[in-house]
């Protein structure tokens, strides 16, 4: 039966068109199709085999040279550790003097996430600031609803990162002492996307500059742009050996796998950490690298890049969409076969 009929005829709103049909492939045909996908789609080469490769940081340094922006650098005070991204480029990950840019989803509903990160920072002697002068990235108000727009998202991004830059002043420390560490995967993807738009569009920079000027959030009359946009999973990745030193529980009998968040690695894929020692460099390295270092049995599965159907608005107002997403069901059955569910 066509699944589009499952939704009282309003299939389009339910996420399915009425033309949705089962493929009815034979077992052999299905095997051939799956083999092709696993050989071609399921590898890092899917992303690296493309022609257009641009490191947006080149444009950023040029704009700074032209006197248009100022770059908040990851400097010695942040004890940076180098990591390699998708194309083998360096990414400087700050490990100390961090400004926690919190996640509304995590703080609101799964507070153990941020608490654990801060707990680990206390354990490893890292200095940080957790303050109230920050909003969320508000990307739900764009990707979820279309009510927001690129100018509002870019302004929110630079407002929050400016606050991170000036926050140390209240402690009598120089500006730039604290470097923003982004907790939320969506914020991470959204901010990186906004940085690209800002570097490419003089018109967007002019609009955002007007707004930030009004808020008193320019530095020497310029927009402040972060040298790196860093997610806490990247901090955990470069800290994994130091974290291991505090390990008290043996996890070698635990089988674990990671479903990397779409917004973390697909919105701006070129900035995501890959590591040849983690699943042969074919998967996003963060989190899996930490599990591996702690000694868990890391399990791979081929539909790692599939969407879970969370979809911003869908998980709130249209949860049947998420539940029924074929890729979610497919990933679950693969995980079940590997004894992970």
């Amino acid at each position, binding site marked *: 039966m066509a699944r589009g009929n499952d939704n009282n005829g309003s299939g389009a709103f339910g996420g399915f068109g009425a033309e949705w049909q089962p493929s009815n492939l034979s077992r052999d045909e299905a095997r051939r199709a799956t083999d092709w996908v696993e050989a071609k789609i399921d590898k890092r080469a899917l992303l690296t085999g493309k022609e257009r490769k641009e490191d947006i940081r080149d444009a950023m340094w040029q704009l700074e040279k032209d006197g248009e922006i100022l770059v908040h650098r990851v400097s010695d005070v942040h004890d940076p550790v180098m990591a390699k991204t998708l194309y083998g480029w360096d990414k400087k990950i700050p490990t100390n003097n961090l400004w926690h840019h919190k996640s509304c989803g995590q703080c609101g509903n799964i507070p153990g996430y941020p608490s654990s990160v801060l707990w680990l920072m206390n354990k490893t002697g890292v200095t940080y600031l957790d303050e109230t002068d920050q*909003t*969320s990235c508000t990307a739900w108000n764009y990707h979820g609803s279309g009510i927001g727009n690129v100018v509002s998202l870019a302004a929110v991004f630079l407002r929050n990162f400016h606050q991170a830059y000036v926050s140390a002043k209240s402690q009598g420390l120089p500006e730039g002492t604290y470097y923003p560490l982004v907790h939320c995967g969506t914020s991470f993807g959204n901010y990186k996307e906004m940085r690209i738009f800002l570097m490419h569009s003089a018109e967007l920079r002019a609009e955002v500059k007007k707004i930030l000027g009004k808020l008193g959030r320019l530095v020497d009359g310029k927009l402040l742009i972060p040298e790196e946009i860093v997610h806490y999973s990247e901090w955990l990745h470069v800290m994994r050996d130091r974290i291991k030193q505090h390990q008290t529980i043996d996890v070698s009998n635990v089988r674990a796998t990671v479903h990397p968040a779409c917004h973390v690695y697909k919105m701006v894929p070129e900035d995501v950490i890959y590591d040849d020692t983690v699943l042969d460099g074919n998967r996003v390295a963060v989190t899996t690298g930490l599990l591996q270092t702690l000694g868990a049995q890391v399990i791979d599965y081929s539909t790692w890049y599939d969407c879970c159907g969370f*979809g*911003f608005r869908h998980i709130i107002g249209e949860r049947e969409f998420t539940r029924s997403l074929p890729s979610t069901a497919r990933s679950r059955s693969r995980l079940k076969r590997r004894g992970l569910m």
Partner: protein
Amino acid sequence: MQEKIWACAQCYTCAARCPFENSPGGLVMIMREVAIKHGMESAKEVLRPFSRVLLKVISTGNQLAPNMITKEAFPDWGPNVSRIDAPLNILRKAIPMPTMHTLDTAWEVNLKTSVELYTIWEATGVLDQLETVDENLFDVVSDVMEEKREEWEEWLEEQEDEDDED
């Protein structure tokens, strides 16, 4: 077509897979903006169940908050809904991060921060877009904004008075 653009989960798998580096998800986003700008019925209908999030994000700058998980909001959880019948006040106080001892927002948001956010909404046409899609929600958000701005003005005046006394 205008209905189908709301089915996209914005996961960007399409962009990752496309060998020609197109981003259908990005194009969908542009079409959604057009739908909102023109106040299309499909946009209004699809965003109705999302209004709690819109209210939260535009009025507080937080998109989700602990007190948004209620029995009324999650009827599809069935018997599992009893799990959210928790003493939230105490549970939140138990979190070892004082900035998170909150219920209305995911973390305590500075009043000045909220006021700065309202300036961004106004300057970028976000409030106009909200009014096009949901006039009632726009009215509620406007009231909240006015209230917080007054509160901020009062705080500034108090600070000035204290400075004068010193």
